[in-house]
């Protein structure tokens, strides 16, 4: 079987991930500024874990982000860019996992799987 050059693929993944994340966030940013640019700056001086106003669904849940995308909600677009940015290093761990499997390095396939499962379980558990 032809070995895939995963090092090359990892480098490209990082570059593409960052580029895509940046483009999506920039689209969101332009919509945001066109719609709200002249409004006064929102109050960022206090954050509360219990106040629902600090946790709008349009940028804190997957469902909220995706429904916001179709209604051209600026905040959802920006947050999709952030999600793409977060997924970039995760993709890198996934690719390394396959790289180790291809090298038949079972110890490091396991280690990458542990790292991946910590991130995934943390993202599902949320709070």
């Amino acid at each position, binding site marked *: 079987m032809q070995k895939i050059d995963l*090092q*090359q693929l990892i480098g490209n993944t990082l570059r593409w*991930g960052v580029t895509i994340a940046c483009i999506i966030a920039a689209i969101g940013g332009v919509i945001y500024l066109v719609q709200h640019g002249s409004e*006064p*700056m929102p109050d960022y001086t206090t*954050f509360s874990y219990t106040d629902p106003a600090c946790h709008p669904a349009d940028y804190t849940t997957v469902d909220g982000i995706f429904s916001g995308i179709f209604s051209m909600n600026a905040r959802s677009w920006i947050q999709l*860019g952030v999600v793409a940015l977060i997924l*970039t290093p995760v993709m890198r761990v996934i690719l390394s996992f396959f790289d180790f499997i291809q090298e038949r390095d079972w110890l490091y396939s396991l280690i*990458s799987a542990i790292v991946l499962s910590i991130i995934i379980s*943390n993202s599902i558990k949320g709070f």
Partner: protein
Amino acid sequence: MSILLFTLIMLAAAYGAGLLGSLTGLGGGVVVIPVLTLCFGVDFHYAVGAALVASIATSSGSGSAYVKEGITNIRLGMFLEIATAIGAVVGAIVAVYLNNNVIAIIFGCVLILTGTMQFVKKQDHTGIKGSEAARRLKLFGTWPQKDGSKQYYELKNVASGFSVMSIAGMLSGILGIGSGVLKVIAMDNLMKVPFKVSTTTSNFMIGVTACASAVVYIQRGNIVPGIACPVMIGVLFGALTGARLLKYLNVSLLRKIFAFAVFLVAANMIYMGVTGQF
């Protein structure tokens, strides 16, 4: 202040943060937090979310260059990533119970350590006799030299390096910054990894560690789009410019100047934190 003005100022500040962060190797988060909290009075819990975004952007942006050159020790990074990822998860849980003043004091302390380490002379380790644990974990590696040959290296003190990494992970879960300084202490000073290798491997780890806590922070609402957007775009372009400039600039003077600025910000953070002004 209008949203447009705030966005433009943040974009410029984030560009500067990415530029300084990549030139000094400290990452963008270290600059983003003081700008948000001290200049705009933003709550630390939002600032930490923005710093996470900045950390991932710097790590991935500059990381794409390093992997291809084969300097990063992926095995070492992946193994230590278990410690930092668990630490980051714990840090993200702990952060909920910390008020702004406590976070400010912790951040100030990390800044002092960061500034101090800028003055510690880096020594390149050669001829290190590796430990048995490191050999079993296959952590020895090679890194390319300027003349195209490959330099082989061994390393040791796996357990203590692993422990320091879990603290580094916890701090980045609380503060959102890469805590590159602790990563360098663990790899460079304890495990005796060659400096070039520890820097790039640390950069690889910062992105993954930041992700482990970012997945929680984004669901809690700590990462707000209005701040995240200019920070992400600004830091990325700043880091790209920094990576280019790095080839032509002698950064040792810049690092020393930056270290003094870091001390001033740290003193300010700790003073305001102790007197409860956040």
